[in-house]
Each structure stands twice: as C-alpha cells, then as structure tokens.
C-alpha cells in the first residue's frame, strides 16, 4: 500500500512536469487535430460540466505529452500515425439545453472544423448534438449519457462507451441473482422510486423492465417532482406497498428527504439501491451520517475498486490538482477522460482525419478493460454503437464509505445483507 502510494507520487510529479513543461520531442510543425466537445458549461449543470472539461483536457494533455501510462494513446506525444499531431479540444457550451447543444455542435463542426465530437453529459443534449453530427457525417463519441434510447436510434455516427440505464438496472438484478446463489437471500417485491425528470424516469423505466425480465414484482412505482420540499406521501406509498428492496433515483435534497422519511416511518427494507447521483454526493454522506449505512449504489467507477490498472490513482492525483476544490476523480470525470482516449485511439488508428476513416476505426475499437480506468471488460462497439464491454459496479456504504461489493471479482468488501435496521 505504502509502496504504491509512493510510486504514485513520483509518477505524479513526473507527469505534472511533463504536462506543464514544453514537450521537447513534439514536432514543431505537427498539425493539430481538433476534437469538439459539447458540455454544459453554464446553467444548472455548469459545475459538473466544469469537472468534465477538466477531465477531458487532462486526457488530451496526456495524449500530447510524453509520459507513459498503461492507458491507450497516452505519452506518445500526439498521434504517432499522424506525424505526432497534437489533439486540441475545443469546448462549446450546451447550457444543458437541447437547442443550445445543437447550436454548439454546429459551431464546432462548421467553424472549428472538428474531426469528431465528444459530449454532452445530459441525455437530452446528447440527443440533439449527435443528430447534428449524424447530419454532417462526423463521428460523435458519447462517454457519459445514460438514456438507453440514445443507441437505439439507428444512427451511423454515434458511439457510446458508457453503459446505460438498462445495463445498470440489469446489474442490480444480476447482483440480486448472485446473492441468491451465494447467500440464498429471497427478494420478491421491488419499489421503484425516482424523480420525474429524464434521469429518474429513465432509470425507473429500466428497473421496471428489468423486474419483468427477471421475475420480480414491482410493489410500487413512485415518481415525484425533483424540486419537491417534502416527501410525506411518497414515503407512505413506499411503506404501504411493503417492498423488499427500493430502487431509488434522486438528487441530493430529495435523497436526504427520502432517507429521513424512511427512517421516521420505519420503512425497513433489505436494501436500498441508489442510482448514484444524490446518494454518492459527499454532502449527502455528511448530512445523513450513519443512517445511510448499508445503502447500495450503482457506479461506473470507484477509487476503491480492486482496479486492474495502476494508472487509476495517478490520474486521480492529476485530476485533483487541476480541479476546482481538489475534487477526486469520479464516475463522470473518469468516463469523460476515457472518452477522449478512445477518440484519440481511433483517430490515430485511422491515420487520417477523414470522418469515414475515423468512423471505421471507431467501429474496430477494441480496448481491453485492463487498459481503461473503468471496471469494464473492454471497449468495443456493437452494431448500434453501444460499447458491449461496459458494466457497472455496485458499491455499498460501509463504515461511512462506499465500498465496491460487486462484481465479486473486483469487490473490496463483502456484501452486508440486509441493510442494518434504522437506529433510533
């Protein structure tokens, strides 16, 4: 452990020097390759957007740098097959609004002459921005939107690395299946709770579909306005439906309201499965304390995973240095970091900035899971453009910290089942 941390520090220092200092080996006249990135830089999602921007820029800098990591394209001082051309990220603001995302994508394609687009976090903005790319015939890589429908549109130029809500829902049911096998637990009734926006609705739909597929009863489906200030009725609905487990998609304020409500009303379930978001926010943990002990969440990334890639803590270090408030690498930022590398890899393999060539290269992408930060088996796109190697992980809040408990092969802690009862 100590050795690893020391090693990390040393590498960190080296990378920091490499990234910030002038790169001697870079060809002076190497062309620049522009990748356009559409992110919510203003508006309600601005803060998330700022983090994603930092992560993407970090990835681009590492690609252009010369310090090597066990990650694709990193440390080759640009794209070797294109004469060590540097990649340059140009950001455009979606404001988190579909029409603005569309305009941003158009700007990047027509004015910045981006060879590929990446973004946009919110599913609704990804929908419009990717249509622009489709129309223009420019590859669009989406590392971070979870609406399942995005890859069901029959788009030719759209690729998504992250697993979507359907996968996450499946993960929960697979996890329950695994538990049934290993611990012989019995879960029959699930309550599906979520805010009534795209996030909660998407997650809830996938969980309901999963219940049908895996043979669970949906005890109740509770959809509530995200900006609500009280959840009395919602909690009572869950309580009277007496579920065995609760699936929950909430932001921070509502997550707090629900957890307090469950506790007050003595809603004792065997598990609460959260769709990360509010439940993994540091403030949620700070505010709710020990009462959230035992909550599960789906994640796409964790620092506590038994990672198969030793670059994880190093990238985390670099990211902390650059991010506002020294935030650690999280699921969103890690996915966006990887997204840039996947694009860089494809462009390099294409050996060309022609869109068709890049698209062909993307279709042939096959990055082993070990070479990513993610707990994925690989990055490889199926016919719809969806990464078929993507998977989520499940973490459980144990001793005040989310610990990976599933898949069992990357788990760092055993599952605590059922959740501890409420302490009064």
């Amino acid at each position, binding site marked *: 452990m100590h050795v690893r941390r020391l090693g990390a520090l040393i590498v960190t220092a080296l990378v920091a020097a490499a990234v910030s200092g002038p790169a001697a080996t870079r060809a002076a006249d190497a062309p620049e390759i522009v990748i356009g990135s559409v992110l919510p830089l203003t508006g*309600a999602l*601005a*803060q998330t957007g700022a983090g994603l921007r930092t992560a993407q820029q970090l990835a681009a800098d590492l690609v252009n740098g010369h310090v090597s990591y066990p990650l694709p394209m990193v440390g080759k001082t640009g794209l070797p097959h294109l004469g060590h051309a540097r990649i340059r990220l140009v950001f455009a603001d979606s404001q988190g609004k579909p029409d603005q995302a569309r305009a941003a994508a158009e700007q990047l394609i027509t004015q910045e002459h981006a060879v590929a687009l990446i973004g946009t976090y919110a599913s609704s903005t990804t929908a419009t921005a990717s249509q622009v790319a489709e129309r223009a015939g420019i590859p669009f890589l989406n590392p971070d939107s979870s609406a399942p429908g995005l890859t069901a549109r029959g788009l030719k130029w759209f690729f998504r690395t992250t697993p979507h809500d359907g996968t996450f829902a499946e993960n929960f049911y697979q996890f329950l299946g695994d538990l049934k096998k290993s611990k012989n637990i019995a879960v029959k009734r699930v309550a599906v709770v979520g805010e*009534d926006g795209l996030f909660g609705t998407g997650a809830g739909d996938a969980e309901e579909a999963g219940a049908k597929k895996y043979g669970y009863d949906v005890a109740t489906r*509770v*959809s*509530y*306005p995200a*900006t*609500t*200030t*009280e*959840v*009395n*009725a*919602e909690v*009572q*609905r869950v*309580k*009277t439906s007496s579920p065995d487990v609760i699936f929950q998609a909430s932001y*921070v*304020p509502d997550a*707090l*309201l629900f957890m*307090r*409500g469950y*506790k*007050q*009303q*003595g809603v004792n379930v065997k598990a609460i499965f959260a769709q990360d978001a*509010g439940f993994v*926010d540091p*403030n*949620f943990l*700070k*505010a709710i304390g020990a009462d959230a002990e035992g909550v599960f969440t789906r994640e796409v990334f964790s620092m506590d995973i038994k990672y198969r890639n030793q670059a994880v803590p190093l990238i985390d270090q670099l990211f902390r240095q650059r991010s*506002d*408030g020294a935030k650690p690498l999280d699921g969103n930022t890690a996915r966006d970091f990887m997204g840039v590398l996947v694009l860089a890899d494809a462009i390099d393999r294409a050996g060309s900035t022609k869109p068709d060539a890049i698209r062909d290269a993307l279709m042939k992408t096959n990055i082993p899971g070990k070479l990513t930060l993610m707990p994925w088996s690989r990055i490889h796109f199926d016919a719809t453009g969806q990464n078929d190697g993507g998977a989520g992980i499940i973490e459980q809040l144990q001793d005040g910290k989310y610990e990976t408990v599933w898949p069992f092969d990357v788990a760092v802690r055993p599952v605590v089942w059922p959740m501890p009862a409420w302490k*009064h």
Partner: protein
Amino acid sequence: MADAGVEALTTFEQLLAGGLLAGLVFALVAVGLTLVYGVMDVVNFAHGEFLMLAMYATLGLALVGIGPLVGLPLVAIALFLFGVVIYRVFIRRLLAGPPEATVFGTFGLLVLLQGLAQSLFTGDFQSVPHPPFQGTLRLGAVALSQATLVEGIGALVLTGALFAFVEYTETGRAMRAVAEDRVAATLMGIDVQRVNALAFGIGAACVGAAGALLMLSFPVFPTAGASFALTAFVVVALGGFGSIQGALVAALLVGMLEVLGGYYLAPELKMVPVYVAYLAIVLLRPQGLLGRR
C-alpha cells in the same frame, strides 16, 4: 386482515400530520413575502433567493461553530439589513416605474443572486455539520421529524410574532396604514419610504429566520430557494396577497393538499390539487382566501 382498516387510518393520520407540518414550513417561507406585498404591492420574485442567501449565511455561521438556532437571530438581522439596502438602492426605483417594472426587476435580482451564489459558493449541495433535532417524535402511530417540527413551531412563532408586530406595535400600525392608504398615512406623519424600507427589511428578516430553520433539514445550493419560492407565491396568492393570517391558512391547505394528493392521487401529481385549488378559489374569490378588496 381486519388490520387493513386500522392501517389505512394510521396512514391517513400520518399523512395529515405530515401535511400539516409541510404546510407550516410553507408558511415559514411565505409570511415574509406576504408582508412585503401587503405594504407596497410588490411581489418579490427574488424571495427564494433571499431564502437561499439566508441558508448560506446559516451555513457560514455553522462552519464557525454557531448552530442554526443560535445563529437564527444573527441571520435574521443580516437579512434585515440586506433587505433595507436592497429596498433603498433598488426596489424604491422600481416602485416609481410601471407595474411590470417590479416584476422584471425582481426577476433580474433573482438571476443576479443565483449567479452570485454560484460564483461564491459553487453549485455544491451543502448542509450544516451535525444539525440538532435529527430524531423522530412519535405520537402513537404517527412519527414526525423533530427538525420539521421545530421548523413548524418556528413558523407558528414567526407568523404569530409578525402578526402581533403588525397588529399591536406602533410601527406595525404604520405599516398597515401605508398598506391601506399611502396618502392618508403620509398625512399621519408617516414616512412612507422609511416604512417601506422597514417592511422590506422585516420581510427579508422573516426569510432569514426561515433560512436558518430550514438548514435543520435541507441542504443549500444556489437554486435552493426556488423550490420553496414557487410554493410560497401560490400560498401568498391563495391566502390573499398581503394577509398574514391568510398565508398561514393557505400554507396549511397547500401542505395538506400536496401530501394527501401525493398519496391518494399520485406523487407526480401532488401539485395538481394545489394548483386546482388555487384556480378554483381565486375564481370564486378573486382576492384570495382572506384577502381584502
């Protein structure tokens, strides 16, 4: 299975209690808004942002070791001063313009304050560390959040105090006079601008107290006020713009409708009975439940 009836009854009681407390929290936020409206006919659309600032102020005090309840008077005073300044430099000017000027002026203030909060405090959700009253109070089968209970009591105290202030003090009397007839009030020797500034300050101080109390159970973030403000506008209009008692009654009604509607109708439709009630009531009584004129 005979228990089913008992259980349904318990659920109903629980919902009733929850709705009542939720209503009190709405009253807590709405009461300052209705005072300002009553005195100077201004709907302060930045009301929610005043609340958000109060919540940040409470957070700031909590971070230096002053808890929400102890910090409450400090926050109220700070918001009072803030309100007076905003009135003197801004609202007063709006009042001299056409009626729509106060509408978009206070909207501008809303946008400005949200932006300031975003740049000063980031978009993070933040809560006070170790807030008191995190337990549950049980009355038979009914379980209530202590924090919400404290907020509810705070709402009653605040509404009562404000009512007493407006009804029984010299200054409160002057406010009522200004509210009713600006010219006649001037003829009593009342400085209308001063009373307006005071009323705006007191309205802000009420929001200050509300913000401090809400930090017992809510996190703060730049748009935290907006969620409460929308309900507060409906509460104030439903109760009758300017009526303190009206705001309390309307808040309780809204809380009940929201909770009962959320349970018996559907949670995603919980605001439907509230808005339908608003429309139905103002169509029958265009001045709101307890409003005059």
